[in-house]
């Protein structure tokens, strides 16, 4: 449980710091951290290079909001049919990819193709999704608070606590999975799929599980993102969204549960620390990505762990 304990002190931060900027950066870090943790499970642990998590992230936002506004149900209730949609889509895409034994590059290309198809549908289904203009989200999640009844979660500090709680929950769930026999089967598939199969591991089932889990986490992150930023647009399910999450995981380090969160913090926070024009920001982002891959193959967390090991 060590990783989740590391997050606990962060609950005290709003008492110490009242900086809106810091808390906002951390809210986005937690949300995108959930997306990155999901990608880390399917890629870092099970070794499948998916490009579908960006689409799942976007659908998470769209589906939750559409269920909420069409049926008049609460945010929490609307997440259930949304998760069902994601589950169904992941099963379909996963079934196609894994049944036909697509690997590495081919798996990446086919998941990318499905993600693009979904983005095109969202972009052109104007009656429901409002096309390129996107949707304005005016609702907020609610919570029952002792003594005050049902209140809306609005403002920076409540959102900080909500997203941190979601991140903790995701961390605990992924840690339980990764440390169990499921995680060991993931590792076996990553290291040598033929051997894993020979040893009696149902590789189809475990790859499917990793893929679905990653998409469910991505969808949770997408729903939180849409409701926090009050806005949902087709760009949220673009390739760039997928690539950003991949960059976070690599920057933070693939081998650990919280590495992706560190990566998310660095990539969300850095543009705020250094005042750059948009063009230079993209260039810095690219340069960081290149340098990390070539110089720090195990990410920031990997570097830290090695340094601690040596000293």
């Amino acid at each position: 449980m060590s990783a989740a304990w590391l997050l606990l002190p962060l609950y005290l931060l709003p008492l110490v710091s009242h900086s809106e900027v810091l808390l906002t950066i951390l809210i986005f870090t937690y949300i995108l951290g959930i997306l990155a943790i999901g990608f880390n499970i399917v890629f870092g642990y099970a070794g499948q290079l998916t490009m579908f998590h960006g689409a799942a992230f976007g659908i998470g936002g769209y589906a939750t909001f559409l269920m909420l506004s069409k049926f008049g149900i609460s945010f929490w209730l609307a997440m259930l049919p949304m998760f069902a949609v994601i589950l169904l889509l992941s099963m379909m895409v996963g079934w196609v990819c894994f049944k036909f034994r697509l690997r590495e590059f081919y798996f990446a290309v086919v998941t990318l193709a499905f993600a693009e198809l979904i983005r095109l549908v969202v972009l052109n289904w104007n009656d429901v999704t409002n096309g390129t203009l996107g949707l304005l989200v005016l609702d907020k999640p609610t919570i029952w608070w002792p003594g005050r009844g049902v209140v809306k979660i609005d403002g920076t500090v409540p959102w900080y606590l909500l997203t941190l709680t979601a991140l903790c929950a995701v961390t605990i769930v992924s840690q339980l999975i990764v440390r169990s026999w499921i995680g060991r089967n993931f590792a076996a598939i990553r290291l040598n799929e033929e051997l894993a199969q020979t040893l009696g591991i149902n590789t189809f089932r475990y790859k499917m599980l990793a893929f679905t889990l990653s998409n469910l986490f991505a969808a949770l992150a997408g729903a939180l993102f849409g409701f926090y930023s009050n806005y949902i647009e087709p760009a949220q399910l673009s390739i760039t969204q997928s690539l950003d999450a991949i960059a976070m995981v690599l920057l933070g380090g693939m081998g650990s549960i919280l590495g992706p969160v560190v990566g998310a913090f660095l990539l969300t926070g850095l543009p705020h620390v250094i005042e750059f024009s948009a063009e230079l920001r993209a260039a810095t982002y690219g340069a960081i990505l290149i340098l990390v891959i070539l110089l720090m193959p195990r990410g920031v967390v990997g570097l830290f762990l090695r340094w601690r090991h040596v000293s």
Partner: protein
Amino acid sequence: MTQVILGQVLNGIIVGTLYGIIALGVTLTFGITGIVNFALGQFMMIGAYAAWHLTDVAHLPYPLSVALAVLIAGLAGFLSDRALFQFTRNNLVNGLLVSIGLISVIESAALLLYTATPKNMDFVLSGSWTLGAITISRMKVVTFAVLLAVIALTWLALANTWLGRATRAYAQNPEAAMLMGVKTEMLQVGVSVYSCALAGIGGALYAGIYSLEPSMGALFILKGVEAAILAGVGNLAGALVGGIILGITESIGALFLPTAFRDAYGLVFLVAILLFRPSGLFGGQK
């Protein structure tokens, strides 16, 4: 209606050869260095902007600008290989991510240098030919012919020269090729640079027909990869055919089905091919 369809097929073929030249680069790089260089689209953009700059700003004759643009794209390819891709040989995932980083860097550089405003080159070759009821601009025909010649020459060189045979041998069995005296490092650098130069010539010719913007590369690399997979990765003549098939699929699809989903038709086709013929349309056993 027949004329419209025929016109669309012709357009599809011409755009398809542009996809094909990128697909050729993708296939060659993958066969020899073991990675997919997703930044090839950006090298195409470099070629396109170089040709535009040399013709419209420096007022050089267009054919000379094209030649220089190819050199510039090749040089950029050489630099990227020495600085980055020599460290990601045969590492597909790292190569993918490094090329994605490179895309951001090159695109931002282009945005800073030339801004996001689309650039239109003055007509280098105006007018069009009419064939029955179909009109097609001369520049498009010339582009098609040049690209076809480049692809055909590449294919001939691979089939008939020592270097070409060495390249194919290396793609088939690296160890055996090395034992036969093929210099691995030089071959890998050479193929890397050649792929970028191919993308450069595609871009330089593209500049003569369409308007340019820094983000143009993303579309072409996706189509190039699609075309390469359609044909079966490693299949050189197939890359061209794959590109043309993709181009025709899109233009005919856009004619009968909603235009908004233009990019989707190729993707659906691609997924179907990958599932039912994993080694591509023209691939044999893998």
